[in-house]
C-alpha cells in the first residue's frame, strides 16, 4: 500500500523582549547561571506575575503577520505539571482563549504553492534549564537548575496537519522563521534555542481522509533535524504499517547522533495538565484601533517582498524566494541594487558564491566579509566588461579573504580583461595553428568543436581574454 504522511508543527519561538514575561529580569542569552532571576520568576511564596506589555504586542504582531484573527478577549491559564525546571510546577500559558487564531502561511516547494493553516498562536513562559551531572536526569547523581531562562517569553505557533512531506514541513518552518525575523519579534537563533518545533506525524493510505495515529517528536531545533527526523519517522511508521502493525500514540525524541527517534512516553503516561484560568492575571483586552496600529507598523513581509522582486527586478520566483527568505539577505540584496548593480547578476552572486562561502564558514550575511557595496562594485566591473565572470570568481575569492575592494584587486593582479582584438587575434591564430583536429572537426560540421579552441585561447590568455571576442574571432576565421 502507498501511504502519505500527515504532518503538523508546533513551533516555539522566544520573543526578543529585554525583560521576562512576568517580571523585570533580563533575558540575555549565555549569562552566568542564576544571575537573571528574582522572587517572581523563581516562584517564591507570595509572588504575583505582571504581564510584560511588549510580549502581548509581539504576539499580536506575529498573529497579524501569520494572517491570524486577533482575539480581542484573551486570557492566561495555568498548565499544571511537576518538573524541576518549572519553579511553580505550573506553566502560565493560554488554553481556550489564545491571543490569535485561524491564520495561514503560504509555502513553495519544488515550484508548487501550498497554504498551511495556522490553528493558533498563544503566549507562555519558558522553563528553566537542567544541568545534569550525567546525560539525563535518570542517570545523574545530581542535577542543578539554571533559572535564567525561566519566564523568558515564548509564543507557540500551532499549525493544522496540512503538510505531507519533510520538505513541506521544513519550508513551513523556514517561512515562519523568516516572518518572525522580518517583524523583528524573535532572534530566531535556532542554535540558542530561540526557535524549536514539536513535529506531529502520522500516515494514512493515499486517497483516504481519516487521520492515522500520530507520534510527536519534541524540541527539534534545526532544519536538518526537521528533515531527518521526519524522514526517519515516516519510514519507521511505514514499516510498522506494512507489517500489519499499529502505531502507538506517543511522544518520541530525536537522537541526531544516531539518526533515530526513541519513545519517551505513551499517551497513557501523558500528563493531565489540569488547566485552570490564571487567577493572578486579568484578561487581555485588545481594541480594533490597537490591531490596526500594529498592522500599520509592520514592515514589508517576505511574500510581498518576493513579489516585488519578481515584478520590479525581473527575478524568477525561485530566486526571489531564496533572496527574501531572510530579511538580512533581502536587505543586502536591496543595498547591492541601490549601488547600481544588475539585479540578476546580484541575485546570482548572492545565491551563488556569497552564500556558498557564508555557509562554508558558518557566517551570516550581517558579518559577511564582502560588503554590499563591494559586491556591487565587482558586479559593475563585470557589466562594464572590465573583468569576465570567470575572473570575477578569482576577484570575489580575494575580496572574501582580504576584504580589499575589487578595483584594486583587479589592478594589482593585472586581471583586467583583454578586449583588444589585435592582442586576442595573435593568440587565436596560434591556437588554430596548433590544433588541427578540432579545426578539422568544426569545419567538418561539428560546431561544438569550437569549445575546445575557445578553451585553449582562454587558457593561453590566462583567462583574461574577453570570451565574447574570442568566440567572434574564432568563428570569423574558421568560417572564412
Amino acid at each position: 500500500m502507498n501511504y502519505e504522511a500527515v504532518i503538523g508543527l508546533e513551533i516555539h519561538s522566544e520573543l526578543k523582549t529585554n525583560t521576562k514575561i512576568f517580571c523585570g529580569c533580563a533575558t540575555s542569552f549565555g549569562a552566568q547561571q542564576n544571575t537573571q532571576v528574582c522572587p517572581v520568576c523563581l516562584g517564591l511564596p507570595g509572588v504575583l506575575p505582571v504581564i510584560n506589555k511588549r510580549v502581548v504586542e509581539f504576539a499580536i504582531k506575529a498573529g497579524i503577520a501569520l494572517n491570524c484573527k486577533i482575539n480581542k478577549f484573551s486570557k492566561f491559564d495555568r498548565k499544571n505539571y511537576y518538573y524541576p525546571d518549572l519553579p511553580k510546577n505550573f506553566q502560565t500559558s493560554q488554553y481556550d482563549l489564545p491571543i490569535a487564531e485561524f491564520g495561514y502561511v503560504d509555502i513553495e516547494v519544488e515550484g508548487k504553492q501550498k497554504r498551511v493553516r495556522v490553528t493558533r498562536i498563544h503566549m507562555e513562559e519558558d522553563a528553566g534549564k537542567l544541568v545534569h551531572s550525567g546525560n539525563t536526569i535518570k542517570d545523574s547523581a545530581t542535577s542543578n537548575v539554571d533559572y535564567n531562562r525561566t519566564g523568558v517569553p515564548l509564543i507557540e505557533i500551532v499549525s493544522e496537519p496540512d503538510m505531507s512531506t519533510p520538505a513541506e514541513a521544513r519550508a513551513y518552518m523556514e517561512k515562519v522563521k523568516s516572518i518572525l525575523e522580518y517583524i523583528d519579534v524573535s532572534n530566531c537563533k535556532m542554535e540558542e534555542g530561540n526557535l524549536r518545533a514539536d513535529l506531529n506525524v502520522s500516515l494514512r493510505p493515499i486517497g483516504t481522509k481519516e487521520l492515522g495515529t500520530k507520534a510527536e517528536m519534541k524540541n527539534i531545533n534545526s532544519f536538518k533535524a526537521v528533515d531527518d527526523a521526519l524522514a526517519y519517522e515516516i519510514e519507521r511508521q511505514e514499516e510498522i504499517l506494512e507489517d500489519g502493525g499499529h502505531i502507538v500514540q506517543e511522544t518520541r525524541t530525536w537522537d541526531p547522533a544516531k539518526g533515530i527517534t526513541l519513545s519517551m512516553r505513551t499517551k497513557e503516561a501523558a500528563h493531565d495538565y489540569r488547566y485552570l484560568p490564571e487567577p493572578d492575571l486579568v484578561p487581555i483586552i485588545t481594541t480594533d484601533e490597537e490591531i490596526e496600529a500594529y498592522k500599520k507598523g509592520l514592515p514589508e513581509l517576505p511574500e510581498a517582498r518576493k513579489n516585488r522582486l519578481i515584478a520590479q527586478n525581473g527575478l524568477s520566483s525561485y530566486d526571489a524566494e531564496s533572496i527574501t527568505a531572510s530579511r538580512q539577505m533581502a536587505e543586502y540584496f536591496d543595498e547591492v541594487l541601490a549601488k547600481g548593480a544588475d539585479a540578476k547578476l546580484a541575485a546570482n552572486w548572492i545565491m551563488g558564491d556569497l552564500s556558498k562561502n557564508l555557509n562554508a564558514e558558518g557566517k551570516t550575511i550581517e558579518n559577511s566579509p564582502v560588503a554590499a557595496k563591494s559586491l556591487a562594485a565587482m558586479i559593475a566591473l563585470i557589466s562594464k566588461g572590465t573583468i569576465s565572470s570567470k575572473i570575477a570568481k578569482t576577484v570575489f575569492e580575494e575580496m572574501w579573504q582580504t576584504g580589499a575592494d575589487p578595483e584594486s584587486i583587479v589592478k594589482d593582479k593585472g586581471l583586467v580583461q583583454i578586449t583588444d582584438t589585435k592582442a586576442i587575434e595573435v593568440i587565436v591564430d596560434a591556437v588554430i595553428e596548433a590544433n588541427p583536429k578540432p579545426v578539422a572537426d568544426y569545419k567538418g560540421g561539428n560546431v561544438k568543436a569550437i569549445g575546445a579552441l575557445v578553451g585553449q585561447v582562454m587558457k593561453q590568455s590566462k583567462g583574461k581574454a574577453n570570451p565574447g571576442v574570442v568566440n567572434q574571432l574564432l568563428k570569423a576565421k574558421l568560417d572564412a
Partner: protein
Amino acid sequence: MRLFDKPAHVLHDMLVHKEITAVALAQDVIARIDEVDGNVKSYLTQTREDALKKAKAVDEKIAAGKEILFLEGIPGAIKDNICTKGIKTTCASKMLENFIPPYDATVMNKLYAENPIVLGKTNMDEFAMGGSTENSAYFPTHNPWSLECVPGGSSGGSAAAVAAGTAIWAVGSDTGGSIRQPASFCGIVGMKPTYGRVSRYGLVAFASSLDQIGPLTRDVTDCANVMNIIAGYDEKDSTSIKANVPDYTTSLVQNVKGLKIGMPKEYFVKGMDADVEKAVRAAVKQFELLGAEIVEISLPHTEYAISTYYLIAPAEATSNLARYDGVSYGERVDGIDIVDMMTKTRSEKFGEEVKRRIMIGNYALSAGYYDAYYLKALKVRTLVKQDFDKAFEQVDVIIAPTAPTPAYKIGSMTNDPLKMYLQDVCTVPLNLAGLPGISIPCGFSNKHLPIGLQIIGKPLAEDTIIRAAYTYEQSQKFHNEMADLGGVEA
C-alpha cells in the same frame, strides 16, 4: 497604668500628647506577651529584639516636636502567611519551617512606612486552610475569652493576639472568612476588604481569586485607620483595583439615618446557635432604633456557596501549592530520585487538611471531571454574585451573623471536616462575590463568649460599612470589654 488594653487611636493620642512614651507602650505589650502568650499561643515567631530601640527613636522624634504617623510606635502583629523580608514566614507549615523571604509583601512596605513596632508573626491554620487555627503544624492557639476554645481561623493567631492585648493591631488574610470569623470568636473588629482593594503581593497564596488581606483591630476607628494605610492599587498585583482610596476616617460618623439595611433570610439558618440569633436580631433592632431602614431580602443561591467555595478554593490551592516540592526552597525530604524526593517532601511536610484540599482540587480539575465540578462551580459563583448585585439594587448594606456559633471547644470538630466547612456558610459568599465585609462585636453568649455581627457592602463601599459599623459600635460599646485573662486591672 497598663496600656495593652487600649486601641491604637487612643495610644496614638496619648503618644502625641506625651502622656505615655513609646518605650513604655512597647514594654507593656511585651510584658503582656510574657504574661499570657504561654496560654494563648498567638505567636509563631517573635521579633521583639529591636522593639525598644525602635520605640526609643519614636520617643525622640516626639520629643523633637515632630509629627508621628498613626501606627508609629504602636505594637502590632502580622499573620505568618505575609512575607516579611529577613523574618521567617512559615504559613504555620512544616514545609516552610525555615523559610525566610528575601522580600517584603507590599502590605509590609506600607505598614513599615508608618514605623510601627512589629512584635512578630502570628499562628494560623496551615496555609490558611481552616477555621480554628487547629490546623497549625506547630500548636493550636487558644481563645482569650475561654482558653479551652478555638480562636477561630485561619487568622486565629492575629485575632487572639489583639483580643489578648499581646498586639494592639494585626493584619490577617481572608479567603472564606479567615479574618471575620476569628474576629467574631475573639470579640474584636475584622475587615475583609473588596477583592483587589489591598495588594496581595507577598501574601502566600491559598486561593488567589478569593484571598484578601485586611485588618484585625480593637474597634472600628482603628480598622478605618489601618485600612487607610494598607489599601490601594499596586502595580505588582494585576488584580488590585485602580481606584482612589478614600480617607476612611471620614466615615467615622454616627449616622445611619435612612440607610437601607438588607437582612437575608438565608443567613438565619437552621442549626444556628440561639444566642447568636438573639444577638444578631437585637443588633438589627438597634439599627432600626438608630434610624436605619430594615429590608428583608433573599440571596437564593446561598445554600450552594459552601460547595462552590470548596471546589474553587482547593482547585486554586492545588496549583498554588504545587511549588512546594523541595527543589529550590523550603524543606526537603531526600528520596532515591527526583520524583521520590518530591513525593516524600510533600507527603511528610504538608498537614492532613492541606493534603485533603490538594486532593479535592486535583480531582475537580482532572480530565473528565472539570466540567462537572470546577466549571459548574464557576457558574454557581456567578449566580452567587448576581444574588448580591440584585440585593444591592434595593439596599445599601446587608447584615448577617458572622458565624453560626460562638467559639467552640478545641478538638470538638476536628474529626468532622464537613461540619467544620459548614461553619463558613455566612462568610464564604462574600469571597465568591469579591465583596467587602466587617465583623464587629454584637454581644455575648450565655457562656460569655463573643458574638460577631457581619456587615456586607457593595464593591469598594468599605466607607459605608465603616459608617454603619461605627454608628452601631458607639451605641453599644461591646468592644470596650476585653477578655479577662487574669492578673490585670484592666
